[in-house]
């Protein structure tokens, strides 16, 4: 049972929320929609759920025109980024709600709700009020409610974004387990997120969305290794990939008075307006390196993010330890230039170290 969309467009105001979006989702698979905020992720999920009607385009599910079926008959499930539950019902009643709506036998409901509670680790909480739960627990309830229905399409709209760091890690692992555990046999799982790391960990098919447009579709690894454009490279990396305007001549990459020997996959690109892309983790501190000035140093977790500047070039370097820098300090850095990407002036990928469009 495939979910197929053709040229979905939605433009409620003067901006496209969806712009000619097409896809073919197959049952049993996990799809990740990766995009920045306001890129149209939620709009797309709501369109699939039936909460929004696109201005044009078609959605077919199981060969039937999905747009003609009202939300309440579509058999989809959705988890929102806000922890949406029914505040007037307790945990058990919340999870039982969709089943009661289908007039299922009470004993079966009990069994299914208990199963769902178990799978999200909330056994013993069935009589709690929703307001008494923490954010993470509330989100588990709403996940349980969407699991209990055995919906053919499960939509998760940035389910972890409102949780604190630790809970996010923990729930992300649990999600991975849940998704890999048979659940997905005939379910289409669609997960939207702004977080590249989450995308890579979930390791499904990725759809990169920006301003309502699909930029690239492919397995997570492929998106990471061969982003087809500057935009995708920015969206699929956190911190965003560093973009350096450079010129390549005589086998040298030149920018801001720095000459770096060009690796083989870049050496033949001599056009104007070339942009070199380098991940923040592919730049290192090195005594013998090139001098940059510190603009800002952020410590996040066990990582230090250095915002550096040299002339007009600004880059971000992530270092796997906690280091203290002052603004205007001088640091010396080296580039792992064999891991550099090159993009044409129009933003398209010119060359990647992983062989995409080589040469």
């Amino acid at each position: 049972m495939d979910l197929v969309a053709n040229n979905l467009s939605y433009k409620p105001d003067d901006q496209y929320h969806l712009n000619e979006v097409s896809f073919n989702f197959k049952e049993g698979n996990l799809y990740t929609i990766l995009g920045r905020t306001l890129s149209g992720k939620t709009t797309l999920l709501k369109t699939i759920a039936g909460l929004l009607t696109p201005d044009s385009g078609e959605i077919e599910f199981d060969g039937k025109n999905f747009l003609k079926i009202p939300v309440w008959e579509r058999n989809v499930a959705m988890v929102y980024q806000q922890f949406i539950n029914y505040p007037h019902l307790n945990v058990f009643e919340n999870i039982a709600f969709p089943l009661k709506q289908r007039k299922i036998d009470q004993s079966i409901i009990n069994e299914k709700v208990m199963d769902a509670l178990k799978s999200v680790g909330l056994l013993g909480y069935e009589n709690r009020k929703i307001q008494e739960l923490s954010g993470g627990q509330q989100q588990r309830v709403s996940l349980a409610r969407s699991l209990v229905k055995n919906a053919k399409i499960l939509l998760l709209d940035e389910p972890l974004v409102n949780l604190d760091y630790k809970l996010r890690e923990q729930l992300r692992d649990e999600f991975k387990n849940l998704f890999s555990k048979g659940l997905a046999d005939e379910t289409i799982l669609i997960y939207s997120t702004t977080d590249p790391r989450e995308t890579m960990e979930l390791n499904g098919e990725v759809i990169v969305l920006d301003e309502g447009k699909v930029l690239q579709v492919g397995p997570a690894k492929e998106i990471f290794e061969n982003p087809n454009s500057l935009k995708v490279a920015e969206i699929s990396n956190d911190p965003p990939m560093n973009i350096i305007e450079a010129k390549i001549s005589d086998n040298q990459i030149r920018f801001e008075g720095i000459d770096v020997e060009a690796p083989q996959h870049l050496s033949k690109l001599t056009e104007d307006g070339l942009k070199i892309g380098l991940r923040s983790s592919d730049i290192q501190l090195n005594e013998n390196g090139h001098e940059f000035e510190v603009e800002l140093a952020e410590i996040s977790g066990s990582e230090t993010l250095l915002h550096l500047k040299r002339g007009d070039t600004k880059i971000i370097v992530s270092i796997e330890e906690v280091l203290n820098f002052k603004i205007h300090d001088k640091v010396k850095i080296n580039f792992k230039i064999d891991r550099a990407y090159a993009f044409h002036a129009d933003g398209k990928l010119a060359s990647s170290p992983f062989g995409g469009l080589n040469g």
Partner: protein
Amino acid sequence: MNKLYIFLKYFFIVVWTVFVVAPFLWALTTSFKDFQSVNGGVTYIPWVDFEPNLEGWKVLIKSPAKGGVDIIEPYFNSLFVTCTASLISIILGTLSAYALSRYTFKAGFVKNNDITFFFISQRIMPPIVLSIPFFLFLSSINLLDSLTGLIVVYIVLLMPIAVWIMVDFFNKVPREIDETALIDGCNPYQAFLKVVLPNSIPGLIVAGMFCIIFGWIDFFFAFILTFTEVQLLPVKIVALNSSVTPWWSLSASALVSVAPLIIVAFIVERYLSKGNLSGAIK
């Protein structure tokens, strides 16, 4: 510091309690006094300062032929009109408010906010402005001096309050809750009845309380739109007054007419103290 705080707290509680309770006590004792005890100097304590009697209360239930005013029928008329009009206002107002909160209406330059304002504007106008159209309207459909006519007018007056309160309330209930209900298999009516409404009970209670209060205390329209057939309590109480002000029966009628509002207030207070009014929706 702490002691001073406690002292001040109780001091003000006591002052406020006296402020609130004293008029009621005064009215209560006065209702048992006779002419002599009211006009012959200040008296406070029954059986000590004055001999209590039930004359003030008896007037309220005696028929006019026996020199009473008989407020029993007007009392139940008032209860009936207020409750019916409030109930219908709440039902209609809640439905309109939900529509105004969730759907977008456009008719030329008229949009949702204009419609909401139209409702509220009914309350901005001084009642006297409305009295003539109401009078002509009721007389044209033969509902002057009838309970039905009063209920119709009160719905017009009370529904804006319900719409006003409920629009605001529904706007605070996240849309995602409705959407989740739809996704979980409710049609839009079920989503409203099973999910949105149960979460809006605090709003309904507040709106209901205001409707009941404004309906119950209205004198103006009750006075203008009724003559002999139907009378409401506030109008009847005014009829008590004569050349000699009957403080005792006025006090008694004040107490019986405030009683339903006190009951409403107690119910709401119970609900409030259970903590149900806050925190239902995050």
